């Protein structure tokens, strides 16, 4: 899945693409800490990413969290500028290259995300949004994904036109709204030295929770979210079908009225009277507003990511079950002896 996103990014024909994101260990740890501390509240944890762009690689060297939205004492922009100015004093890279957000059970692709990333990408060409999955990471699999809007998505957003025709002409589907960029993590040699020191201080038996066999609660959560999304998509589909039916009915009525008018005109010309122009009849049938397909596309994208997450989760659970099977077989052969 990461490879597919990478290929998408490389096949684009714009000049400023980012092929991969390189993250410093410091930024990763800070993101983990902030998202973990905020996971007890229901709010999403958000913050800014600082770094620089080197060729086709976006380097993230530092990050800082945003305050919770409930605190109104300081304007958000002011806060960002103040923090960035302070960090510049201590020689931290001050180029704002993107933002990060925590997500719960992978429901990250929302309208808000799309909008924010659009604003970021129009002001800073190379920005990315990094999504950190709190649930998955607390189970033991660190999950960091970087996304960018594809050029077609940006074009569509700029036009503000979300009709099905726009989707068709720009060839935007739920898979081509966001492109996933592979992330690599790099540490400086001094940090490596520090980590080898930490290795001795860290207790050996921690950090193996991902070998846990419990699957029921996680599966239930995933299925519940999946069901909710599918319901939403169903509502959208019903709306679209209704619209199509109304348009069809309108069309047939328009045809009937035009036919009637043509017959009437024929009668009138035979009597020598002026004909009624067609526009008057057509004006009676005002065209229906075409429903926007944006929410449907976003919901499809969410369902897609859910399905991918579930597939990954099930694959690793199956692997763990087979490991326990071999253990049980070994125990049984021992007992038979």
């Amino acid at each position: 899945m990461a490879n597919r996103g990478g290929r998408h990014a490389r096949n684009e024909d714009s000049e400023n693409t980012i092929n991969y994101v390189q993250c410093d260990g410091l930024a990763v740890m800070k993101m983990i800490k902030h998202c973990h501390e905020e996971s007890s509240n229901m709010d999403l944890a958000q913050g800014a990413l600082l770094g620089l762009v080197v060729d086709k690689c976006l380097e993230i060297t530092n990050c800082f969290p945003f305050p919770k939205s409930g605190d109104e004492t300081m304007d958000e922009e002011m806060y960002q500028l103040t923090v960035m100015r302070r960090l510049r004093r201590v020689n931290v890279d001050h180029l704002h290259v993107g933002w990060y957000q925590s997500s719960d059970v992978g429901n990250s692709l929302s309208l808000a995300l799309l909008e924010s990333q659009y604003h970021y990408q129009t002001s800073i060409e190379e920005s990315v949004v990094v999504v950190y999955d709190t649930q998955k990471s607390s189970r033991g699999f660190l999950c960091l994904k970087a996304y960018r809007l594809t050029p077609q998505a940006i074009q569509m957003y700029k036009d503000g036109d979300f009709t099905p025709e726009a989707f068709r002409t720009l060839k935007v589907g739920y898979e081509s709204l966001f492109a996933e960029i592979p992330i690599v993590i790099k540490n400086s040699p001094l940090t490596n030295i520090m980590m080898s020191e930490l290795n001795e201080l860290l207790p050996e038996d921690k950090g193996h929770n991902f070998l846990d066999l419990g699957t029921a609660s996680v599966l239930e959560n995933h299925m519940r979210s999946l069901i909710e999304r599918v319901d939403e998509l169903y509502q959208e589909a019903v709306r679209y079908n209704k619209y199509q039916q109304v348009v069809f009915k309108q069309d047939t009525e328009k045809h009937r009225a035009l036919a009637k008018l043509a017959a009437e005109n024929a009668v009138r010309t035979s009597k020598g009277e002026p004909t009624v122009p067609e526009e008057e009849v057509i004006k009676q049938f005002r065209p229906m507003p075409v429903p926007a397909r944006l929410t449907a596309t976003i919901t499809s994208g969410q369902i897609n990511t859910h399905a991918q997450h579930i597939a990954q989760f099930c694959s690793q659970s199956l692997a763990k079950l087979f490991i326990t099977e071999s253990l049980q077989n070994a125990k049984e052969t021992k007992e038979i002896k």
Partner: protein
Amino acid sequence: MSGLNLTVRVHPVVLFQVVDAFERRNADSHRVIGTLLGSVDKGVVEVTNCFCVPHKEHDDQVEAELSYALDMYDLNRKVNANENVVGWWATGNEVTNHSSVIHEYYARECNNPVHLTVDTSLQSGRMGLRAYICIQLGVPGGKTGCMFTPIPVELTSYEPETFGLKLLQKTVTVSPAHRPKTVAPMLDLAQISEAATKLQSLLDLILKYVDDVIAHKVTPDNAVGRQLLDLIHSVPHMTHEQFTQMFNANVRDLLMVITLSQLIKTQLQLNEKLTFLPTA
């Protein structure tokens, strides 16, 4: 209050930040200082965050931008109201005269500040991590001074931080000298297979040890023997029928969920293709 029974628990983020600040220091500074943030609870100081404070050291005096420190602390409070100033950190491996001046300032900010040193100059071949507090000594009524006494330092972390650290530690292994090693977040199945390989190698080690003991090549250690016995007994005791039942039920559930989710994915893709068909 002597405060001698304090322990310091440090989160890994703090050390990452310290090393990064040291790498980004100005060309003319030999060491960097900053504030430690965290909380104190019943004799344990838990340090969860830190930031760097610009400062200059001359022969006989120290200049540190205290307003900067206060500003950063305020800004951090907006994000996390639980973090208070608990002390300060410095790079280098010794406590200098300047340190006592800085420590006095921090003593005004908080109660009994902790001083942490991270030895980035790698003296004695290791990056030492030490913590000190300042104890008053001297004769009451006469000259008093203060002494930096070392206190024990431990490493603690939230669970996700441990996982993150384990992933990051993969960059430590030997790599080609001119290219720093990078590591990417792994897919789930890859992580499991790696853990299985690691388990296998650990089991091989244990088997070798047991074989050596049986062949009298190594003196047996009772504590290790007891732990091995605990290990073997920790495998849950299940009859064949119970196990096959549990195994099959779980595998069935997982396979069904996988099938359903792949079905949904295929249906979405089909729907997508249909909407892109030109209208009649």
